[in-house]
């Protein structure tokens, strides 16, 4: 176990190194010039050159990348070009909002997805099952910006139940969390359905039925705990999907998280922030996958970590 964990952590570090290299390289070769953004349109060529030198952007790629890695090893993600603040500080200040949004999204997608999956499994092959499974496909086919605008229109503009955007109270959280979670709920519904169907076929369920237990007791006490575990274990994987979604959801709802930070940075070619957010997102994805793999053997003892 310790050896496995150590090897996986080493692999994760390598993956993050690779991500940092590719992102840095892409931002280096791409045609957008951050210095122009900082200096503004009316800057003289001398000013532009000055800024370029100050930021070390006139140095060769290898030197720039080595400098970045060196600083990163000491926990320094650099300074934002435009906001003149430490990137690490910016990300840390935005992170709680994003984590809150993700927690809300996970709660919602599990609530909706697991319920849909359980009901579909119990009514397998009937009309309810078919309607639920088509619904699950609708949720995975709906782009987040359409869902967010639809929710805003119905529940904020027309009904006035929730604020139209912003951050601070529970009411602010509801619509963004639903938007972010609705995509995953479709996947959870499908996974939960097939997991539940597999469990309901198992011999011990037949035994329980033969003992004369009520249907409700069989489903809730005997089948559900076993069926739900492998599905819950997928939460780690979700983080990767969320990391993309937060850019859209946070911009539409004006949610002050790292997705909005990234989107603003991309528009202004603020490279240190783009690098920082990409690395934090990649770290979260790698960590999520690692957690999912580590949980697996506890849920299904037949799985061995190799």
């Amino acid at each position: 176990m310790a050896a496995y964990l150590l090897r996986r952590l080493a692999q994760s570090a390598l993956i993050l190194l690779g991500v940092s290299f590719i992102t840095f390289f892409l931002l280096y070769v791409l045609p957008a010039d951050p210095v122009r953004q900082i200096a503004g349109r009316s800057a003289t060529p001398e000013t532009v050159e000055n800024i370029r030198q100050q930021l070390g952007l006139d140095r060769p790629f290898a030197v720039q990348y080595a400098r970045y890695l060196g600083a990163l090893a000491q926990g320094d993600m650099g300074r934002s070009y435009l906001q003149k603040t430490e990137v690490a500080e910016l990300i840390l200040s935005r992170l709680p909002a994003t984590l809150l949004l993700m927690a809300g999204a996970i709660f919602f997608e599990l609530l909706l997805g697991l319920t849909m999956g359980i009901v579909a499994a119990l009514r397998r092959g009937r009309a309810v099952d078919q309607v639920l499974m088509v619904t699950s496909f609708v949720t995975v086919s709906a782009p987040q910006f359409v869902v967010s605008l639809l929710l805003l229109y119905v529940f904020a503009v027309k009904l006035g139940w929730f604020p139209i955007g912003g951050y601070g109270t529970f009411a602010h959280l509801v619509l963004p969390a639903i938007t972010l979670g609705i995509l995953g709920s479709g996947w959870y519904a499908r996974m939960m359905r097939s997991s539940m169907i597999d469990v309901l076929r198992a011999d011990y369920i037949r035994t329980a039925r033969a003992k004369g237990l009520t249907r409700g007791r069989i489903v809730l006490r005997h089948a559900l705990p076993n069926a739900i575990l492998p599905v819950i274990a997928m939460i780690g994987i979700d983080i990767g999907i969320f990391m993309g979604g937060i850019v859209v959801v946070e911009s539409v709802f004006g949610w002050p998280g790292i997705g909005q930070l990234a989107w603003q940075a991309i528009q202004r070619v603020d490279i240190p922030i783009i690098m920082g957010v990409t690395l934090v997102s990649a770290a979260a994805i790698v960590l999520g996958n690692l957690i999912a793999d580590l949980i697996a053997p506890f849920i299904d003892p037949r799985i061995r970590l190799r």
Partner: protein
Amino acid sequence: MNDLSAADALPRGTLSRLMQRKAALFGLVIIAMVVAGALLAPWIAPYDPNEQMFDGLTLEGAPMPPGGQFLLGTDLLGRDLFSRLLHGARTSLVIGIVANGLALLIGTLVGITAGFFRGWIGAGLMRFTDLMMAFPALLLAICLAAIFEPSLWIVAMVIALVNWVQTARVIYTETSSLATRDFIAAERTLGASTSRILFRHVLPHLLPTIIVWGTLGISTTVLLEATLSFLGVGVQPPTASWGNIIFENQTYFQSAPWLVFIPGAAIILLALAFNLVGDALRDVLDPTQRGRD
């Protein structure tokens, strides 16, 4: 069994078996309608999609609601929404086919190579795939699309670059299990060349998987294009795309919701259609899944 051709990989009657499933039939009908609309756009569209019509706005300068002279109403610039939707279908399908085709090609090549030639090539390719999995795909796509000068082809390329990874993993798994099967070993003993084994024996077995992932992938691609265009870093106006119609009109969506929700519904329907057909194809083409539902 030793000379599978591409046609045999798709069992006879695949299409008719698909049609028997209501959900898949619904998907096929939607796809057929969108394809027809896109192909015939210049003839069906009642107006020029880019013409800002004088009578396309109310006296106060607001867009016209659906019904009346303009079937689905007009947008903020007085252009006919129905005509723009028809031309936007072209954008969605072109990107869906080009970007997804490219992603499928890259994914299949990487997957087959890594699965068939083990050793350092395979290991290297799969480590690279792992690395790509750690990238937040949408963030990467937005970043690339924003920094390049966005055009239809750049958007297609960006989408292909982030979307090949899943296919590569699936094809890799299948190829590596195929590579250890007896009939491949037998071919090798008979002296078949590597290219013959790959093209005549491995590829036909992978075809169902490629078709299923190709169909599901179009859905992902359509959604990604719409999202990029919605953020303003995808297909650029005046070229119509379902995503950029929403992007252009979202500031006005409280008073003219149809400008957001009609294109939104089009995106959802098309993505749903490819998902439903892809899912049904998986059931029809994969014998191990048969009789499960």
